């Protein structure tokens, strides 16, 4: 057997398996190291620098998400040099781009002018769409990063609104690359990547085309992965998390049965996301599951029973419709026998609904003429 590998984090001696990163070891032992660019289940890039930790004897900072643990390492996760470095990293990210959330309000100089510029670019008087649900904002609070100069320059790239589902707001992109990982390593749709160099760097689809003309299939995995307000769902752009209630359920389209979270406000489904800790999909969804829920609140929904009279439908009460149905079915059963009636149950409704239909067909109608349209 291998000699036991150990590492010391904040004074705790911990075992690890070769190949694990410092972050892996810390997480397994419930030691929290903040991360930003790292996306669970994908290869680390070490891009953002938020997860830096100090290797004690060397006095050097390394990124925990992309540095493998080595035997005998001694790590400090919140030393003063670590904290200073994180603060600088966060401040730098905040100072470029339209991060007009509450975290910035504490430094008063130019706030109004800055807000006005952002509102104009957003075409909206709201604060950042991610306000309240932003990893960068959380980190800024945690490390008490405020102020810094505002970048009062116009955003380099205009917002992309030209598709029905996703707003790409490059002015808030911190180039962490989580979306690229989500697209290429989680969903493997290979639609987006880093493009251009230096100051001009940007997340692009092939040939920097708009998403709607690219290989993008609008699964929205990148939106879910984006830690800030750079990728937001178009239909729920300014919805705030504290006004919505989350309800876990199962997608109703295909047989994969992805787990979903409904986000509900005022008795309406506002958006759908994938809970990333639950099988079978671990947070992944497709365009239908994530964005295809308008039908729930469609004005075309049937809301009252209908009875046809002289070739035309009229509204009816439940009692009327149910009585008529029961009476006609009983008559036909009596006149032509139970086997002259058939029931089509549905691959769309719940097990409980199907069971009730099955029991009704066999125990009440007394026929086995029951099927569903899965053959079709």
């Amino acid at each position: 057997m291998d000699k036991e590998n150990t590492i010391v984090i904040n004074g705790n001696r911990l075992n690890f398996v070769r190949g694990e990163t410092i972050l892996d070891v810390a997480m397994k032992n419930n030691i929290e190291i903040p991360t930003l660019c790292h996306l669970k289940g994908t290869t680390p890039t070490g891009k953002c620098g938020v997860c830096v930790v100090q290797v004690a004897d060397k006095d050097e900072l390394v990124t925990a998400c992309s540095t493998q643990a080595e035997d005998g390492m001694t790590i400090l996760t919140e030393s003063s040099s670590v904290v200073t470095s994180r603060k600088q990293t966060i401040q730098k990210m905040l100072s470029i781009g339209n991060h007009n959330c509450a975290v910035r309000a504490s430094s008063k100089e130019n706030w109004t002018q800055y807000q006005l510029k952002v509102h104009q670019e957003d075409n909206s008087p709201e604060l950042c769409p991610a306000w309240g649900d932003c990893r960068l904002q959380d980190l800024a609070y945690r490390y008490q990063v405020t102020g810094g100069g505002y970048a009062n320059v116009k955003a380099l790239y205009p917002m992309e609104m030209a598709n029905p589902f996703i707003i790409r707001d490059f002015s808030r992109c911190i180039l962490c690359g989580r979306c690229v990982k989500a697209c290429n390593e989680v969903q493997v749709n290979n639609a987006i990547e880093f493009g251009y160099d230096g100051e001009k760097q940007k997340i692009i689809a092939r040939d920097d085309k708009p998403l709607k003309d690219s290989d993008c299939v609008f699964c929205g995995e990148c939106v879910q992965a984006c830690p800030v307000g750079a990728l937001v769902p178009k239909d729920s752009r300014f919805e705030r998390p504290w006004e919505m209630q989350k309800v876990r359920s199962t997608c109703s389209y295909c047989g994969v049965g992805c787990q979903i979270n409904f986000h509900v406000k005022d008795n309406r489904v506002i958006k759908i996301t994938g809970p990333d800790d639950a099988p079978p999909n671990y947070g992944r969804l497709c365009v239908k599951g994530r964005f295809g829920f308008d039908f729930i609140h469609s004005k075309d929904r049937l809301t009252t029973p209908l009875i046809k009279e002289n070739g035309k439908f009229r509204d009816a009460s439940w009692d009327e419709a149910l009585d008529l149905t029961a009476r006609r079915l009983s008559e036909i059963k009596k006149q032509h026998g139970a086997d002259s009636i058939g029931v089509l149950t549905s691959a769309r409704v719940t097990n409980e609904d199907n069971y009730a239909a099955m029991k009704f067909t066999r125990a009440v109608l007394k026929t086995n003429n029951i099927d569903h349209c899965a053959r079709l």
Partner: protein
Amino acid sequence: MTNTIGDVEDAEVILVTGSNTTENHPVLSSFIKRAVKFKNAKLIVVDPRRIKLTEFAHLWLRPKLGTDVAWLNGLMHVIIAEDLHDKAFIENRTTDFEKLKSMVEKFTPDYVKQITGIPEARIIEAARLYAGARAGAILYCMGITQHTTGTDNVKSLANLAMLCGNLGIAGGGVNPLRGQNNVQGACDMGGLPNVFSGYRPVTDATVRKEMEGAWGVSDLPEKPGLTVTKMVPMAHTGEIKALYIIGENPMVSDADLNHAEKSLSHLDFLVVQDIFMTETGMMADVVLPSACFAEKDGTFSNTERRVQRVRKAVDAPKDAWNDWRITSEIAKRMGYPMNYKSSQEIFEEIARLTPSYAGISYERIERQGLYWPCPTQDHPGTPILHTQEFTRGKGMFHAIDYIPPAEKTDDEYPLYLTTGRVLYHYHTGTMTRRTEGLNERAPESFVEISAEDAKRFGVEDESMITVASRRGEINVRAKVSKMVEEGTVFIPFHYAEAAANKLTHAALDPVSNIPEYKVCAIRLSRAA
């Protein structure tokens, strides 16, 4: 599925056939793509269309429509001839190997090439690749089942998996991908003409006795009932007088729609229960409004047999009710009380009367679903089927000969049509076509046609053309595309205004009664 979705990432070789997975089961396709990209799995795609997955495939076989038994027998011919089969598995777990062996003998690569158009070398390579894997998974969908020979196709896939010992192991299996969210559950619950919930036959007197006792009734019918594909034509002949249709729209999904419409109009009484008015609902005498999935509690069973919770997030609009409540109220009015207070109460009854669900409860699946069979409350569920033995003990090989599709092209109808789905829509589109964004991405129907055929028939890209079969015709926009091969066109079936199923052929598989949606003969002309 015999195996789980996550299990796909453990396969060494993945054979996908008759499934346009990236469009129809997108999240599942990410498991396949990840296996190829990060776990070195080898992907074999067998599909007449140049689907997205072919870009990830190590090997793509492109058979002519409806020739699945031929290429499958061809693969097995090579595997046996090259002595690559799993002799221990065949010896211990199966019967009738000799019958299979003599059947596939004539399916030499050369013979198979003549039928399927797949070059010999590809057949040999695919056979070696699949048989050489420690674990090989087979995934298939409607492209396999929606043929007159659908049952044969499925059995042939099982033959291939057994031949290589790929059943009952992680990363293996024969895995049907269910098209609709709760097909598995509808079948599990006995929404079938011949079985109660848990696939217990209605012909079994002991089972009937048990159900009679539990339900407090007598004389449960013993004769298996009719499938949907039989009920509709029998409405036409007058043998079926009334239909109660819950949440389905056979008027768009039925093969040979023109006939379906006539049939339904012959009924004495039609009740349709749905969340929207549909083409089928328009023909009904009574329409009952039901709650949609976001408005109800319950469970769905996914394609890997995982029973998962559905939870109410919002109230149903005005007077729409849960489907089970509506059904129960009709029952009550016909003299049989069904007084359920909650879906949980129904689920408890299901668990009591369905051995494979006996150990499942709402409490147990609160956070994460369970795989059936799950016979007791401390049973962990069964992710992989057939690890020790098959349901009937030993697995039986079936000797299956190739039968060509029911309809052939001729001078008048010179092209083959195949149908399917697109990413942005679902089934007959009642839900997705009411979502603006999805409609914006895929607003109208189209016919995919190869550049060669476009030239031959004088069809311009983007122009409106008329597609006609022996049963009907529709107008659709032409999309000249590399997806299809010369001689074949493709039309999605989601669009009621250009319903592909006006063209399709209602010839049925003799066992499953599934219509042959995937092959029929058509002709093209410029739309008038």
